[in-house]
């Protein structure tokens, strides 16, 4: 018998299943993983150091580029930190708008995750279905902020502007005929809230479609059931948060346990798994999409009935309205100072966290009273999840590495920062 040695294999950093730029060094005994060593940092941009050299408002768009599939949730944590340092109150309508967009973001994130996960495990069509729905929500992003991805819509003190009264329509084009154009614009005739409401009515049937394709699928179950099992104690010990923790059976959700924005007034459930394997994490995320859909519907309902301001009237934090600047010298000074020097924030330190789609996304900010943060630390949920890669993959077959990696919902923008 020839002697078989362990060998080391390099996975990534340009592998399509590496979800970005992950270099994974795998030590193999035949087909069994003995050790997995993730090498990260290939997307490191020193966001935290950049933030130390920029004013509070200038750093905000960097938040979109951290976890670039759940943009507005990152902005939310950042704005909460600045607001807590300043002690500024956010109008109720802005809180509901933030809640609405946090949940839209959650659906966006879980749709991308589901599509990519199915693709990694070998099911092609789910990806296409998921992107169909993402398109609608991306249009909502665009309608409210002007950007499909990097919105920079939340601002310290509220949100940049109120929801548009008219949902943008598809324009005539040589590539589509009049009938198609009419079909596309059919649900865009009213306001943006009408469009979102229409989406919330359609969405449960879409989720049913994904579940038809996957939940009882034999191959899907073979690839996910019993893979990457993490028990509840171990999940806490490893610093898991979000769906990763809940799939292990720990009912911890910041929206319920430490409510922020308008979550305390809304009715929703926290899906919890049992076994903590890849299949449970899939079920938890799918159930979360259904819950998010309910929250979106409740927010739409509230926002329709309650008009009001969407950003604070403290002009030292948010710019005064444009009309006022034409006549008021004070308003002009505020505007000039805010966009040149920026706001100065009282000394102190805060940690604020939101329940981002991937887990607890936190911002730890130290201010020494200047117009720039002294130190900002981003607590990315994916970081401890990926750190557990070695433990979760050990003893599994090499084909399961992709399933385990993908179940963590890894995005390198936030892990490498």
């Amino acid at each position: 018998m020839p002697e078989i040695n362990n060998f080391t294999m390099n996975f990534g950093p340009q592998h399509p299943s590496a979800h970005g730029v992950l270099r994974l060094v795998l030590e193999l005994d035949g087909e069994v993983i003995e050790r997995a060593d993730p090498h990260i940092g290939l997307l490191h941009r020193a966001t935290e150091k950049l933030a130390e050299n920029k004013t509070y408002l200038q750093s905000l768009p960097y938040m979109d580029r951290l976890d670039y599939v759940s943009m507005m949730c990152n902005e939310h944590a950042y704005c909460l930190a600045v607001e807590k340092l300043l002690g500024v109150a956010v109008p109720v309508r802005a809180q509901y708008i933030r809640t609405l967009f946090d949940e839209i973001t959650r659906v966006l994130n879980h749709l991308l995750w589901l599509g990519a996960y199915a693709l990694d495990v070998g099911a092609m069509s789910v990806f296409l279905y998921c992107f169909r729905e993402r398109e609608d929500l991306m249009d909502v992003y665009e309608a409210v902020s002007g950007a499909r991805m990097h919105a920079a819509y939340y601002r310290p003190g509220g949100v940049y502007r109120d929801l548009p009264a008219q949902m943008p329509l598809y324009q005539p084009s040589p590539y589509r005929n009049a009938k198609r154009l009419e079909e596309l614009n059919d649900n865009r005739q009213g306001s943006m809230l009408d469009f979102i409401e229409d989406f919330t009515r359609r969405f449960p049937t879409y989720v049913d479609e994904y579940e038809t394709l996957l939940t009882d699928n034999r191959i899907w179950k073979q690839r996910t059931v019993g893979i990457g099992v993490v028990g509840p104690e171990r999940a806490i010990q490893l610093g898991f948060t979000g769906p990763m923790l809940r799939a292990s059976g720990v009912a911890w959700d910041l929206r319920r346990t430490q409510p922020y924005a308008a979550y305390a007034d809304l009715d929703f459930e926290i899906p919890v798994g049992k076994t903590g394997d890849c299949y449970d994490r899939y079920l938890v995320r799918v159930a979360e999409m259904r819950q998010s859909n309910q929250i979106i519907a409740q927010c739409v309902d509230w926002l329709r009935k309650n008009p009001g301001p969407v950003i604070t009237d403290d002009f030292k934090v948010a710019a005064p309205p444009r009309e006022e600047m034409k006549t008021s010298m004070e308003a002009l000074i505020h505007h000039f100072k805010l966009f040149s020097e920026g706001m100065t924030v009282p000394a102190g330190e805060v940690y604020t966290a939101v329940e981002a789609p991937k887990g607890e996304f936190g911002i730890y900010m130290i201010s020494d009273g200047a117009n720039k943060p002294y130190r900002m630390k981003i607590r990315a949920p994916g970081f401890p999840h990926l750190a557990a890669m070695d433990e979760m993959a050990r003893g599994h077959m090499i084909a399961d590495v992709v399933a385990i990696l993908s179940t963590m919902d890894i995005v390198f923008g936030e892990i490498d920062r």
Partner: protein
Amino acid sequence: MTDALENLRRNLGEELGETLRNARLDRGELTVELSREDFLTACHWLRDDVNCAFDLLVDICGVDYVDYGDGLWEGPRFAVVYHLLSLKHRQRLRVRIFADDDLPIVPSVVDIWAAANWFEREAFDLYGILFEGHPDLRRILTDYGFVGHPFRKDFPLVGTVEMRYDADQGRVVYEPTRTEERVVVPRILREEGEGRYNARN
């Protein structure tokens, strides 16, 4: 919420004694400063005591205080900040521990919270803080063969090296950077009146 934190502060004061140097309740968040002696014992207690039960380590963060308040800082330069979370009591706690200036060493908490592994590697990489007892203290975010600790305040924002492909040598070469640091908005620290400008006078 604040009452619960007040209780916790009293509890910590009684139990930790000398190890607890300072406890501050600010903006609804409790920050305690622990001494390096008996730090691990205190951490064990924070995790295992039923009234604390800080079983989830949320974050570890290095801080370089050298420029704090434009030179007003008098304490040690480096600190490590731990954010703890108790799922049972729904409470958060911030623990700060200072390290020496020239050779910053603090005890590693990997054996108490497994999540600390990568967070400590990150603090080592970015600030050069050494964690005594860490099983595998390698750089994590910076490039292979990187020199220096980039998040220290004396490390330039533009970095020290740049790299390009050299066609003659047929490989990637590193050279001192030619980028100049450009400050568009200067850092301003106002002393009087809460540090805010006032457009009304």
